C-alpha cells in the first residue's frame, strides 16, 4: 500500500482573502464534520490542512495539504463526492477558477489536478498503514487492554503463555476481530527493493562519474563557503505577535499532535536554488530507503512531513504533522538531525551561520528557533484522522496485531505482552 502526499496550491483573489479566511476559520473549528470539507468522511485521509498565506511580492496563496492512502485518482472521486459544494465555494475565491457550478465534476477535478504540487522530499512515519488500519488497530489494542485489565483483576495473569492463550482466544472467538489475521506487510519486498536499488545505483553512479563532477562541485562548494560567510543571519527574537498566533493554535486539548506550516524565501542566485534541489533530492532518496521504520534521522515523531520548492525555486514550503510539542520537535531536530536540517534550510534567508552547507546552522538553538518561528505561517484548518495517536503508538498497535495470533515462544510472548 502506498501513500500519496501532495498539496493543491492556488493563488487567491485579493478581494476574496477575507472571505476565504473566514470560511477556513469555520472549517478549522470543526474539521471533522464541517459543511465545506467534512474530513472525517474521507476514509483514505490521514492528515489534511488549509493554509492561507500572504506574503509581499507573492500575494495570497491557498495551500491545501492532503496525505492519503492510494493514488490521487483513487482519492479525487471521494473528495469530490464528499466536498464538491464546499470546494467550489473555496476555490471560487481563487484565481483562474472558472468552474461555473459544483456539479461540474470534470471541471473541478481538472482544476485540482492542474494545481497539484508534489513534494521534492517527504517522510512517512507509519509506512504502509492505511488510515482505516490505524483506527482498527487502535480499537483492537483498546479491547485487549480491557481484557488484560480483567485478567489482572481476577488473578488470571499467571504466565506469559496462559495470558497469551487467553488473549488469542478472546480475539478468535469474537467475529468482530475476524480482520486481525489479514495484515499485509508494512512494506512489500518490491517496494523495499526499488528504494534500495535507487540508492545503490545512485551511489555507484556518483562514484563512477566522480571524475566529471568532483572538481566543479568542489569549486562550487568554495563559492558557497564564501557566500555563507557573508549571508545575513537572524539577530533578533522571533516576532512576538506571530508567536502568539501560532501558540494559540498549538497543543489543543485532547490532541497529542501538532501541525507546522512554514514558507521560507530561498537565498538569491541559481547556486542556492540548485543546492536546495539537490539536497532535497538526496534527502528523499535516503528517506525512501532508510526512514521506513518510524523515524527520520533519529526523530521518532513525524507522521507526514514534506518539502516542496515553489514559485520557480524562490520559496520553500514545509508541512509537518508531528507528535508532541513544538519545542520538543525543534529540539529533536537540533539534537538529532541538525545536519540534514541545516543542509536544507541553510539555503533560505536569515538561517543561522553555517559552515560548508551542513555544519553549524541549526546547532545555534536560540537563533534557529527564532528563524523557525518567523518562517512559520498560521494553519487555518487542520485535520488528523487520529488525534490521540503517536507514530510510536501506531507502530505498537500494528505489532500487537501482527504478532498476536502467531505461536510465540516464551521470549516472544513476553515481548508481545509488554506491548500492552
Amino acid at each position: 500500500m502506498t501513500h500519496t502526499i501532495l498539496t493543491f496550491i492556488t493563488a487567491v483573489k485579493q478581494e476574496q482573502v477575507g472571505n476565504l479566511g473566514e470560511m477556513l476559520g469555520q472549517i478549522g473549528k470543526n474539521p471533522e464534520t464541517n459543511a465545506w470539507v467534512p474530513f472525517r468522511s474521507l476514509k483514505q485521509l490521514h492528515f489534511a490542512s488549509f493554509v492561507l498565506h500572504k506574503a509581499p511580492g507573492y500575494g495570497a496563496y491557498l495551500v491545501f495539504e492532503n496525505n492519503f492512502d492510494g493514488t490521487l485518482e483513487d482519492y479525487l472521486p471521494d473528495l469530490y463526492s464528499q466536498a464538491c459544494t464546499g470546494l467550489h465555494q473555496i476555490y471560487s475565491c481563487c484565481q483562474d477558477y472558472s468552474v461555473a457550478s459544483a456539479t461540474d465534476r470534470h471541471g473541478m477535478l481538472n482544476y485540482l489536478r492542474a494545481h497539484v504540487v508534489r513534494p521534492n522530499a517527504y517522510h512517512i512515519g507509519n509506512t504502509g498503514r492505511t488510515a482505516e488500519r490505524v483506527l482498527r488497530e487502535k480499537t483492537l489494542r483498546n479491547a485487549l487492554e480491557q481484557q488484560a485489565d480483567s485478567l489482572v483483576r481476577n488473578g488470571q495473569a499467571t504466565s506469559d503463555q496462559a495470558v497469551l492463550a487467553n488473549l488469542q482466544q478472546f480475539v478468535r472467538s469474537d467475529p468482530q476481530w475476524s480482520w486481525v489475521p489479514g495484515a499485509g506487510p508494512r512494506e512489500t519486498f518490491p517496494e523495499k527493493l526499488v528504494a534500495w536499488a535507487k540508492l545503490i545505483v545512485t551511489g555507484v553512479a556518483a562514484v563512477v562519474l566522480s571524475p566529471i563532477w568532483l572538481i566543479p562541485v568542489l569549486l562550487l562548494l568554495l563559492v558557497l563557503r564564501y557566500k555563507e560567510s557573508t549571508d545575513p543571519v537572524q539577530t533578533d527574537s522571533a516576532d512576538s505577535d506571530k508567536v502568539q498566533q501560532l501558540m494559540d493554535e498549538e497543543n489543543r486539548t485532547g490532541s497529542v499532535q501538532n501541525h507546522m506550516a512554514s514558507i521560507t524565501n530561498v537565498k538569491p542566485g541559481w547556486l542556492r536554488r540548485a543546492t536546495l534541489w539537490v539536497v532535497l533530492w538526496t534527502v528523499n532518496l535516503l528517506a525512501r530507503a532508510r526512514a521506513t521504520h518510524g523515524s527520520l534521522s533519529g526523530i521518532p515523531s513525524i507522521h507526514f512531513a514534506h518539502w516542496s520548492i515553489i514559485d520557480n525555486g524562490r520559496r520553500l514550503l514545509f508541512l509537518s504533522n508531528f507528535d508532541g510539542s513544538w519545542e520538543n520537535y525543534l529540539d529533536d531536530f537540533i539534537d538529532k538531525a541538525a545536519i540534514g536540517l541545516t543542509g536544507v534550510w541553510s539555503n533560505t534567508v536569515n538561517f543561522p551561520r553555517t559552515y560548508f552547507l551542513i555544519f553549524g546552522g541549526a546547532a545555534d538553538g536560540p537563533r534557529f528557533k527564532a528563524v523557525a518561528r518567523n518562517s512559520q505561517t498560521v494553519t487555518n484548518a487542520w485535520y488528523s484522522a487520529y488525534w490521540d495517536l503517536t507514530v510510536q503508538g501506531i507502530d505498537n498497535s500494528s505489532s500487537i496485531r501482527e504478532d498476536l495470533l502467531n505461536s510465540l515462544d516464551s521470549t516472544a510472548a513476553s515481548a508481545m505482552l509488554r506491548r500492552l
Partner: protein
Amino acid sequence: MVELERKDIQGMVVSAYKHLTCSAYLLLRVTNPVGARTWISERLPGVTTAETKHEKISINLAFTYTGLENLGLPQKGLDGFSFPFQEGMTAEYRSRLLGDIDENDPTGWDWGGSPEDRVDVLLLLFGEDNATVDAELQRQQAGLADRGMKVVKTLFAGREPNTHEHFGFNDGIGQPVMEGTGNTRRQLQRTNHATELPVGEFLLSHPNVHGVIAPSPTVKPEEDPMQLLAVVPPDAAGLNAEPGMHDFGRNGSYLVFRQLSQRVASFWNFLDKATCAADGASDPAARDRLGAKFVGRWKSGAPLVLSPAKDDPKLANENNFAYFDKDPYGLSCPIGAHVRRSNPRDSLGPDPKTALNSANHHRILRRGRSYGHRLENPLIDDGEERGLHFICLNSDIERQFEFVQQTWLNNPVFSGLYDEVDPLVGNLAKGDRLFTVQAGPLRRRVQNLSRFVVVKGGAYFFLPSLRALDYIGKLQP
C-alpha cells in the same frame, strides 16, 4: 575550569542554602517607581552573592516583567527578554501546556493568577531558624510603604524536619551542577553522581549546551550613562545582544515560582484503596510499594531501579543510575513514575548516549522548599494547607522548565505510554487518568487517579545580577 563572576551572581544560583532551614518569600508590588528604585539600592548591600556563605541569613531579589516595566527598564531591555517571561505564566496557551486548567486554572490561584493581583518583585529571605527569618521579615517590611512598595502576599517555607516532601519522600536528590561552582565534588560525595552543565544553562550571556550564548536582554549604551553594566564583546554577541550594547541580563537567571498545594491524605487514601485486600483491609506494605512506584524512589529516596523489591535507606541519596540497561521496560521503576518522567536520563530512544545528551538539554536547578506542617497521620486529613513552593532556575524557560512540564510530566503519550500523565503533579483533570505499573506477565493499570497536587499560584521572575540590580536602582525617570 570556568571562572564565575561570583560578586555579580546572586547566591541562590550556586547554593540551595541547605544550612538555612527556614525561609520567607515576600511578593511585592511597585506603587511608586521612584521610591521603589531607592528601596532596591538600599537592599543592594544586603543581597547575598555567590562569593560568600552567610551563616544566619541570606537575601535574594527577583522581578517579574511588570516589575521591570514599572521600575522603568528601557523598552529595548524589556523586549530582549524571552516570551514566556514577557507574557507571564498565565497566558491561555501557556496554561494549556503547563497543565494549568480546570482546578489548576490561574483564575482560582491565591496569587499571580490575574492582572489585578499583580506581583512585581520577589524578595527571598533564608534564615537559620524561624526567629531569624521573622526578625528579618519585620525589618524588611517596616520601610516598604515609604518606599513605594506594597506587600501582595507573604509565603513561608522550609519548616520540615528533613528533606522529605509532604507525601513523605526524600526530595531534591537529583540536581545538575553548574560549571564553575565547584559543587561537583560535593554532589558526587552526596549522591555518587554529578551532571555538569555549562554556565549558560542557568545564567544568561554565557555559552549554553548548544555552545552558543544564552540570549540576554541588553540596553543601548546611552541608556546606561553610568556604565554600570558589562559591554557585549564582539565575539560573544547573542540573540538581541549586538556587540557594544550594555548587557542587562548577564549573570542573571530566570526564576520559576509555583505554589503547589499537596493533598496528602487523598494521595495516601487513594493508594490505600488501590492496594487493600478483597475484604477492604489495608495493606501498608503494598500501599508504600505502590506509592514508591508512583514516585520512582522509596520514601528514603532509594531509587527503584537499584532496589526494586524494598526500601533501602543506604541508598537514600543515591543518584548514580540510568534506565536503558537496567530497566528498559519499567519493570523496576515504571515508565511513567515521577522521577523517570521528570528526568528520563538515557531512556528515550534507541541510543542511550544520544538520549542522555538530549535529556540533559532540559535540566533545571531546583530551589524549592516545602511549606506547612507535616500531616501527622497521612491517611487522615487535618484540613490544613501544605505543599511545595517550587522554585527553579534556568536560562531558557521554554526549553527547560516548560519542556519538562509539557513534554515529560504532562505528556499523555510519554515514552510510548497511552493516556496517562505524571501521577503526582500531572494534570489529572477528571479523575479518569490511569497509571501503568509495568510487570510480567501483564502490567497493572491503576485507574481513576484524582488530582493530588493543585497549583495555587505562580509567576516567572528574573533574578538579576548585582550589577543589574544596581542599574535598576539608579534608573532615571
